[in-house]
């Protein structure tokens, strides 16, 4: 039997998942205060961030040369809790390079940086809620959580939906990764069906011949029936 912990709702992970060591001192332990629906479904920021540059959705074209690694296309739809498309929503992504190294100054993994890859992108969803990025497949990398700990390859996603409660930061994984069963962050989501909602699927339709493999990743946000506020564009 799993213990119901604060925050463990709707397939989300609990705050405290002791196998993921950093949760031990950071997970709140007091019961959460329930906000009634009337206060929860208030509109949130659609957070138009102003300008999106032409190369923001193509992480392989942000430098003079092309990054090393397996070129991939990641696409999917962002939907709200009623299954309706989230339109004009900001999608922000970040990831390690093909060798499993982030450009971040605190990443000490002794794998090479790629001068042609920064690993950060953003785009807006279209009228069907669709987004699309071109990037390279990120590598797995070690971390200090426990002895011989490795993160499965993943792309971080940050999303704003229609209401304040829709805000989501998650990670997209790749199908069939042998590291899933050893990764406490992935395993913090206990329900296997919910785990599958974090795994992209290989998609031949998205794959472009002689160019790049395609992966599909649909994202469902919480909240509904609200019109987000859009930042006026400068």
């Amino acid at each position, binding site marked *: 039997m799993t213990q119901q912990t604060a925050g463990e709702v709707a397939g989300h992970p609990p705050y405290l998942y002791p196998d993921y060591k950093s949760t031990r*001192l950071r997970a709140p332990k007091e019961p959460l205060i329930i906000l009634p629906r009337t206060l929860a479904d208030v509109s949130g920021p659609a957070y138009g961030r102003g300008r999106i540059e032409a190369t923001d959705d193509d992480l392989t074209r942000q430098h003079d040369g092309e990054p090393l690694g397996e070129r991939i296309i990641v696409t999917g739809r962002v939907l709200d809790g009623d299954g309706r498309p989230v339109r004009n929503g900001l999608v922000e992504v970040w990831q390690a390079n093909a060798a499993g190294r982030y450009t971040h100054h605190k990443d000490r993994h002794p794998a090479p940086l790629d001068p042609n890859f920064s*690993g950060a992108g953003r785009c807006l969803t279209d009228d069907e809620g669709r987004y699309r990025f071109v990037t390279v497949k990120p590598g797995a990398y070690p971390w200090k959580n426990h002895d011989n700990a490795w993160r499965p390859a993943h792309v971080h996603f940050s999303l704003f939906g229609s209401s304040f409660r829709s*805000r989501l930061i998650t990670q997209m994984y790749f199908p069939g990764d042998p590291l899933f069963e050893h990764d406490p962050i992935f395993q913090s989501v206990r329900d296997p069906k919910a785990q599958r909602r974090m795994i992209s699927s290989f998609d031949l339709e998205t794959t472009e011949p002689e160019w790049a493999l395609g992966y599909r990743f649909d994202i469902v946000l919480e909240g509904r029936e609200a019109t987000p506020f859009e930042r006026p564009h400068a």
Partner: protein
Amino acid sequence: MSPEPTPSQTIGPFFHDALLDGDLTELVSPDHPQAIKIEGAVYDGAGDPVPDAMVEVWQADAAGRYGSKDFFGFGRSGTDEDGRFSFATLKPGPVPGPDGTLQAPHANVSLFARGLLKQVTTRLYFPDEEKANAKDPVLISIDDAGLRRTLVARDEGGGAYRFDVFLQGEGQTAFFEFEG
């Protein structure tokens, strides 16, 4: 049938280049005549500062309107080695609540960090709004006075308010969850 939500996962430690590449801490210019400063620090259950968090605020303007043309009301800040974050913003006005009530002026605060598998969400209320706070539907729904106090910032004078966030342990900040 409604689709099931995508589970949350931690922001991890390496988000800065993607999410904090522009300065998003100034919701208004600090030189704005009505600008206030919100500053604080984030602490873990051992009382140590959390140096790798991201704090987001979302608030109404002085007239209680969200997302108005002249003041969008959204901001983001990282935390530094001492766990500190700060925003230059305007003091929000009271906003409509359920059943014709008014909510006291407040900012919605979300916090993401390595070790948080899902963001925590709280509210910052103002110490100089005692009358409005006493009638606020969210504040009065919290029976524990100590917990309620964690939501009220401290007046530092000169238009500065201090709002520390304690993730865990004695004095833990009150965090919210949305009704299903």
